[in-house]
């Protein structure tokens, strides 16, 4: 039989060979050709664990810490690994209710399946975490991860520093730098310097077994990347001055902006009402944010210094004086007579007093409306130009060069441009050719369609102080000890000769010495200032003041706006003088004035006004016409 069926060994061997070849082909297909299986393997075994870098800290100009980080702990849960435990003590340890617990587990399960860790409770404070951590081993399935939250040791400058929050889904989809749950700067420096502050996330490749248990690093961390801490920033703020400004602004609505004219660095930028930046951090944030957001009277989240627009009032006369001189229609000897009001045809603009005949310096010191209406008319009727429109456009160019009506190029988000009317606007409003200098006479005294922000006002003071140039106001001095952008070191000139500034500075000096703001004189410091009282059709006027000091080579330029403060000299001027005194002398000698300012409460008028029955809402132009017709232009 052996010989009979001997050939069958070939058939049997052949069958075995076919099986062998089939296996090798199958192996080749699975291991070499089919790519999907490889992806599946790395997807389920490796998890890329993000290592969060701490955000950069922010220091003031003198190296005082304004923003730092503090540890906070996220409690994570992997629902499938949770075993029976004492939920009561668990909830007590974390300070949550049983309902929170159940909904937290449910949310985690829905969000990320029962087999993966997801955040159960966010931003647990170190105090709570310390006691919880000791028992963590008893709670199977729960782990923790360290995150950092912002801490503000000096509790100042909330609007400047801004705050951080979780990124939204749209941004995550757009920007690969962000994953859901990451933090991002939402306002202030946190927003504008987000890319410097955030640092670089690290990736740690961890291996997980089939039970989703972490089994360690992949190849001892050979492919991991380390997180890079965000850059530390030094800002231009003088925290002490800022703090003092905030103290002065208690119970007042408005703002203070202080700039170093020699550099454009913002020394203080107060927007009041303000809040403790620590309120916008960690687990208390959601509650506080809502509270601040709902305060529609005081709108504390609104950065008035950059976003609120006020008519500049008489502070604008300084610019009129400069334009008049440059245009050759005004010089220091030009005299006009003030009978107590400016009359031109049907138009009349009131003045505080009958100043009699006066020249430019005095006119600034006393803030004579009549004088500056005449100056404005001479600019508008300049023989140089063939038409009022042409004269207006020339005037407008000068005003624009002061940064009014254009968005400031500042390294803080959402600074507004203010309002400066165009020829087109008047053509549309009055009809082409149907308006002339007298029609827009309110501009002469900084009323009408004009609107400026406190930042623009401070910059204006800084330009006058520098006799014709400015540096772009900015908030950051250096990033990780490297100076910031070059553009902040470039002089910007206004098209007005330096010589013309002297008489204006002299006038502004008189304002403080024996003019409208004589009460705010600082012994030992030659301060130049200009009051402004901006009309408010709905209630009390806004009190404005711009100033710089010393008169020559000023080291500080300030603008102060006190909403519903009344006269410029009443609140804004003393507060500005205190800021200057504080900055230049470091101590306040005028204790009486300081006390009065600290105790003052003008925010009540804002609330009263808001609560009063709403008057008919005027738009800017209507308001202007109404006030002019009533002959009620009142200014210092």
């Amino acid at each position, binding site marked *: 039989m052996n010989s009979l*069926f001997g050939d069958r060994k070939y058939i049997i061997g052949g069958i075995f060979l076919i099986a062998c070849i089939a296996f090798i082909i199958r192996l080749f297909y*699975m291991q070499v050709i089919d790519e999907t299986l490889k992806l599946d*393997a790395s997807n389920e075994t490796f998890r890329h664990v993000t290592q969060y870098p701490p955000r950069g800290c922010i220091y003031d100009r003198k190296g005082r810490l304004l923003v730092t980080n503090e540890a906070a702990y996220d409690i994570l849960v992997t629902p499938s690994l949770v075993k029976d435990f004492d939920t009561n003590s668990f909830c007590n340890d974390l300070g949550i209710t049983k309902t929170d617990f159940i909904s937290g587990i449910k949310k985690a399960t829905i969000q990320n399946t029962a087999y993966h860790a997801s955040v159960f409770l966010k931003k647990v404070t170190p105090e709570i975490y310390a006691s919880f951590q000791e028992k963590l081993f008893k709670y199977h399935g729960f782990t923790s991860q360290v995150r950092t939250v912002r801490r503000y040791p000096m509790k100042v400058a909330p609007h400047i520093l801004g705050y951080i929050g979780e990124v939204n889904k749209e941004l995550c989809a757009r920007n690969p730098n962000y994953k859901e749950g990451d933090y991002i700067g939402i306002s202030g420096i946190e927003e504008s310097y987000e890319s410097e502050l955030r640092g670089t996330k690290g990736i740690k490749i961890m291996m997980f077994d089939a039970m989703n248990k972490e089994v360690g690093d992949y190849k001892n961390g050979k492919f991991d990347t380390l997180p890079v801490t965000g850059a530390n920033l030094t800002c231009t703020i003088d925290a002490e001055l800022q703090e003092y400004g905030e103290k002065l602004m208690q119970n007042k609505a408005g703002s203070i902006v202080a700039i170093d004219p020699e550099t454009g660095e913002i020394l203080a930028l107060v927007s009041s009402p303000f809040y403790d930046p620590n309120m916008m951090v960690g687990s208390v944030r959601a509650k506080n944010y809502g509270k601040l957001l709902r305060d529609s009277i005081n709108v504390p989240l609104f950065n008035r210094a950059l976003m609120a627009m006020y008519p500049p009032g008489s502070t604008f006369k300084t610019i009129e004086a400069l334009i008049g001189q440059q245009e050759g229609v005004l010089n220091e000897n030009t005299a006009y007579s003030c009978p107590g009001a400016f009359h031109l045809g049907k138009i009349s603009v009131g003045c505080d007093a009958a100043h009699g005949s006066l020249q430019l310096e005095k006119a600034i010191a006393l803030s004579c409306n009549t004088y500056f209406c005449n100056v404005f008319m001479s600019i508008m009727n300049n023989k140089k130009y063939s038409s009022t429109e042409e004269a207006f456009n020339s005037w407008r160019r000068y005003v624009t060069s002061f940064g009014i009506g254009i968005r400031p190029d500042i390294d803080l988000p959402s600074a507004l441009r203010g309002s400066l009317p165009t020829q087109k606007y008047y053509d549309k409003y009055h009809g082409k050719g149907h308006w002339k200098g007298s029609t827009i006479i309110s501009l002469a005294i900084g009323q009408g369609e004009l609107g400026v922000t406190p930042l623009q006002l401070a910059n204006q003071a800084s330009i006058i102080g520098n006799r014709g140039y400015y540096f772009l106001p900015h908030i950051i001095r250096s990033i990780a000890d490297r100076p910031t952008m070059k553009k902040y070191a470039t002089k910007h000139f206004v098209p007005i000769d330096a010589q013309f500034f002297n008489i204006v500075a002299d006038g502004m000096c008189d304002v403080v010495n024996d003019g409208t703001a004589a009460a705010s004189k600082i012994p030992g410091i030659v301060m130049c200032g200009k009051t402004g009282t901006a009309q408010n059709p709905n209630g009390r006027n806004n009190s404005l003041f711009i100033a710089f000091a010393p008169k020559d080579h000023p080291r500080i330029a300030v603008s102060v706006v006190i909403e519903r403060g009344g006269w410029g000299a009443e609140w804004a001027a003393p507060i500005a003088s205190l800021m200057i005194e504080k900055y230049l002398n470091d101590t306040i000698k005028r204790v009486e004035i300081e006390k009065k300012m600290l105790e003052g409460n003008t925010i009540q008028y804002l609330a009263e006004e808001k609560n009063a029955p709403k008057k008919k809402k005027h738009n800017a132009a209507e308001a202007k016409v109404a006030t002019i017709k009533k002959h009620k232009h009142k200014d210092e």
Partner: protein
Amino acid sequence: MSDRRSNIIPHIDWFTIGIYLCIVLIGWLNIYSAVYNTTHPGIFDFSQRYGKQFVWIITGFILAFLIMVSDASFFSVFSYPLYGIIVFMDIAVRFIGKDIAGSHSWFKIGQIGIQPAELGIFAINLGLAKYLSNEKKASDEKKIRLVAAAMVLMPMLLVILQNETGVAITYTAFIFVLYREGLSGNILLGGFMLIALFILALVGNKVVLSIVLAGLALLAFLIFTRRKLKDLSKVGAILGLCLVIVFGTNYAFNHLEPHQKKRIQVFLQQNVNNSKEGYNLHQAEIAIGSGSVFGKGYLQGTQAKLNYVPAHATDFIFVTPCEEWGFVGAAFIVILYFILIIRLIFLAERQRSPFSRIYGYGVASIFFIHVAVNVGMNLGLMPVIGIPLPFISYGGSSFWAFTLLMFIFLRLDADRLQILR
């Protein structure tokens, strides 16, 4: 006797032993890698599976040595008694056996469990070799065939009754032995056709399949027969049988154990949920695929080690070399087995004694069926059937059984020149 013993050394097939040692070493290193535990890094750590496997391997070597120094005629003499004992135990286990993991197939003697089904294949191989070598020359063929078939099918049925379907499937290895010894090629072909028909019946549309079968039958009748009534009834009977199988398959399928049904569904990729019943196979495929051409490197595998692959030291051990040594390593192992099996066939063919030849074919076929089913299931070419990969899967009893099986043949082979034709 002592003369003969000292003489056999040059006649031992050292080539086969070399391949055997190769596979054993690969197997042991693989188990080390598959269950590698950083807290017990020593490969001789006896608390770990790789340490234990080392003990099985060494004792297996001692067993092999004992076989080589024993008398070759011993195995032939003990064939029938051993076969008888195993069949008896297969029956007895029905009544006095213990249930372990759903199968009613274990004797418990103190701490030691004995599964007659596992020893069955060895006993059948010996018994069948003995029967066929004795009876061939004498009595009529029909009787021989019936007895031979019964010798395989009876224990197979008993094992199925013990719920050890996987073991029963390995018994089909003997079809190759019987074929070599004269079984009609039609039966071998019919066997393959039957499997194909089962699969088609489960996957395909039964009506279409019936029409195709009827068409084929008609063609066969018209072309290959003399178109007599006798032929018609023959073809008709085959067709009828096929149709019974086609329609009976579903009925049988629905009466399978749920886990068996699932395994077949997974194999056929019908309604498979990869996180439930399909998980094992899917994970094994992922792990194998992740190995790529050259693998991740020894001890660098992730999928099997991290327990994504179940039974990764036993039934799914093949996954680990696939993952760590890639296509190159996996193909090398497959080829190594192929060489071993072909070598065994070569050895079987050179035997003068029919007993040795038949036994040798049995060994080759048993190895083949185990490798084919195990590797096939790892690669998703076979339904999941829990049988070990010879010499590589973790486990003492299977390692011993395969070593015993092979070294008896090597002992017989070493003795081949002593036997006269």
